[in-house]
């Protein structure tokens, strides 16, 4: 029976994240953003991450025996929205670890789980670096080659835009198997500890926004990966456990945009209620109501779609991977649009770094690059429509 009420546990976690965001992230967001603007490889708020971990939040996606709560996609989306509304870069960094820890826990071998999950769960500052294709990009993008060597592999080449590259203690990367036939060659997913020989941190990308999500290049030169550190998806591109896992968690990418845009909307309401022009708060001018309404529609519809997609991801019974992609695409278009309107409602103030809306906008533009481009996501969804028919009224 259709219902939109969070469980008590979800509601409590949501409050916890909101409170954490307001108390620990919002106050430092502007300053850290500026610093990172001067030095992209600069500070990450490790103390904040420690507190985040000590509240039990870092380990949520893990099974209970590892200190987690078996967090599903729905809860992931709800909590991520709260964190995104506070500081999108930090939230994105946490998201990577949630995603990748979940990946190992769900798709890893027993050996992988028992080796890597405790490393992650017991270390309050353990972040994971994401060099996978994620839910959207296509295998064409990979510039990292994997060659067989005995029972293991040798990695050579480069990854770009490795999320948390400069911060992580463990990387998970996709590589293209050399010698495989065709452009859509086989790919493998490798777990690579930071200290592995042959892995070197490359250029840290100097980004327009979400600067606390440090991203970098990662250079591989004869980096040996034992067969035991390859995730099980190998050889079953698009059908393996990893691919299913990534398809399943796609709605969490939708939560990126929902959180950022919501924050921009909230600040806009506050501002328009305070700012007086024409003898009354500008909120009371119809044209301002109009803009706020457009923003509110965008944010609410996106959240509704993310929730519905997330529920289906958790349910799996009636699962349609296209629903998850629609939520990413919609929320990713929506967030820059809403933040742009916020900037306009702030007038000249919207342009000033002293006010947060320009940061929301810069952060929101990241959403257009969950894949290589936003068109890549649209095309991926379009491809899925060639054979499968929508089930009406689902």
């Amino acid at each position: 029976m259709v219902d939109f009420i969070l469980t008590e546990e979800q509601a409590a976690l949501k409050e916890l994240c909101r409170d954490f965001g307001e108390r620990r992230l919002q106050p430092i967001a502007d300053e850290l953003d500026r610093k990172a603007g001067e030095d992209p490889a600069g500070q990450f708020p490790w103390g904040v991450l420690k507190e985040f971990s000590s509240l039990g939040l870092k380990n949520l996606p893990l099974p209970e025996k590892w200190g987690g709560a078996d967090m599903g996609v729905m809860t992931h989306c709800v909590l991520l929205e709260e964190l995104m509304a506070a500081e999108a870069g930090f939230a994105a960094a946490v998201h990577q670890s949630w995603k990748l820890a979940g990946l190992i826990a769900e798709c890893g071998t027993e050996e992988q789980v028992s080796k890597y999950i405790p490393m992650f769960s017991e270390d309050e500052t353990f972040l994971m670096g994401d060099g996978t294709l994620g839910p959207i990009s296509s295998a064409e993008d990979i510039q990292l080659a994997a060659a067989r060597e005995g029972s293991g592999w040798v990695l050579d080449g480069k990854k770009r835009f490795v999320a948390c590259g400069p911060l992580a203690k463990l990387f998970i990367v996709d590589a293209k198997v050399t010698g495989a036939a065709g452009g859509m060659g086989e790919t493998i997913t490798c777990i690579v500890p930071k200290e592995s020989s042959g892995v070197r941190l490359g250029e840290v990308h100097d980004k327009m926004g979400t600067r606390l999500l440090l991203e970098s290049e990662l250079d591989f030169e004869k980096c040996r990966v034992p067969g035991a550190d390859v995730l099980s998806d190998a050889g079953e591109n698009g059908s393996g456990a990893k691919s299913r896992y990534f398809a399943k968690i796609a709605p969490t990418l939708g939560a990126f945009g929902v959180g950022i845009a919501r924050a921009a909307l909230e600040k806009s309401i506050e501002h328009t209620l305070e700012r007086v022009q024409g003898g009354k708060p500008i909120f009371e001018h119809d044209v301002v109501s109009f803009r706020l309404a457009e923003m509110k529609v965008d944010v609410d519809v996106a959240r509704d779609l993310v929730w519905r997609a997330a529920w289906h991801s958790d349910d799996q019974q009636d699962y349609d991977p296209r629903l998850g992609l629609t939520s990413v695409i919609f929320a990713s278009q929506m967030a820059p649009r809403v933040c742009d309107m916020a900037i306009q409602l702030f007038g000249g103030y919207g342009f000033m770094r002293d006010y947060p809306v320009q940061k929301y906008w810069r952060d929101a533009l990241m959403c257009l690059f969950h894949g290589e481009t936003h068109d890549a996501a649209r095309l991926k969804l379009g491809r899925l429509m060639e054979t499968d028919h929508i089930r009406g009224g689902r």
Partner: protein
Amino acid sequence: MVDMRLTDEQLELQGIVRKFSREVLKPIAAECDRNSQSDPAGCFPMDALKAASKLGLRTLGLPREMGGRDLDTLTHCILLEEVMAVEPGFGAMFHQVWRLAQHIGRVGTEEQKKKYLVPFAEDDTCLISIGQTEPASGTDNTFPYRGVDGGIKLSAVKEGGEWVLNGTKHFVACATTARIFIVIGRTDPHAPAPEGATQFLVWKDTPGFRIGRTHDKVGGALLMNAELILENVRVPESDVLMGVNEGFSDKARHYGRGAPMVATFGLGTARGAYEAALSYARETIRNGKPLIRNDAIAMRLADMLMLIEATRSAIWRAAWGSDNREHYLQRDAAVSSYFSTVCARSVCENAMQIFGKDGYTRKFPVEKFLRDALMTNHINNTVDVRLLKIGRSLSGELVSSL
């Protein structure tokens, strides 16, 4: 706990309605539309209505004890989507009759139910209509204008134990085909319309009551909008629905909580166009490959599906809120209905593009869906009024509603 699973009853009814729509409505939709061009008043497919009645579809809005299902908002939306995806005008008719039967069932007296709903249930072709809009008052009623000079003008004057109604309505849905009418009249011309209007139950054959011209519309032909002309129509006091001057009262408001249903107009229409375009794109071979393998076409389809799923999500949440009073927000309803109009317009136009020049002809179904989609512009509220209502509601809210 968040849940998106439909109940067994919802799934059962959805199946019946979908089957009916595909088997009965789909084959006649284009012809009815064509007939409406020369004969707007005579194009309604009475046989299809009878077939619907046999399946119990016409009377779904009745209380269960009268043989209906007392549809909640969500179920209403889910069923309506199925019809809308095939024949939006006919779907809009269902919407009217479902909610009006339910409205009378909920607020009517036992006597009223006996007098109106029992015959309604028994007559396979009986429909119900409500007359609100008048030539001079549209938005004034729905975005209520507080001046006494605005709003409903149809006069209702008490004479003895009867009310005498005089005036004209227009754009009245199902007026051409209905036998039972709810007419909203101004019972207190000195109060603003929201506080001075009353709903009256009237049989079509009441002396002085007359159906005027059926409107010649560009889409949604089977909704059969027409004028109502009332000349000294005498209505007994016992046919006042709810109380005098309560035509727009809180009591009547559950009726106003139908915005997610109205939003379904756009959702279903968009889905119909989308499904037609998807089939066409899969089946049409152009330059040696299916049209859908063309990147631009695939991306258009992706955008269409995105809007459809987004709209459905918003409607479901709004409908759920409408069914669970403690979570009801008028704004959510307005969000869904505003957004569904955007969705319908965009999806239908995209669908037309996928068909290419053929899409501009009436040989293919998309241009009709696009015309039908115009219904979403002005049902209950105009699009801009929906936006204004949302905007004005935001002052109290510095945190998200969910």
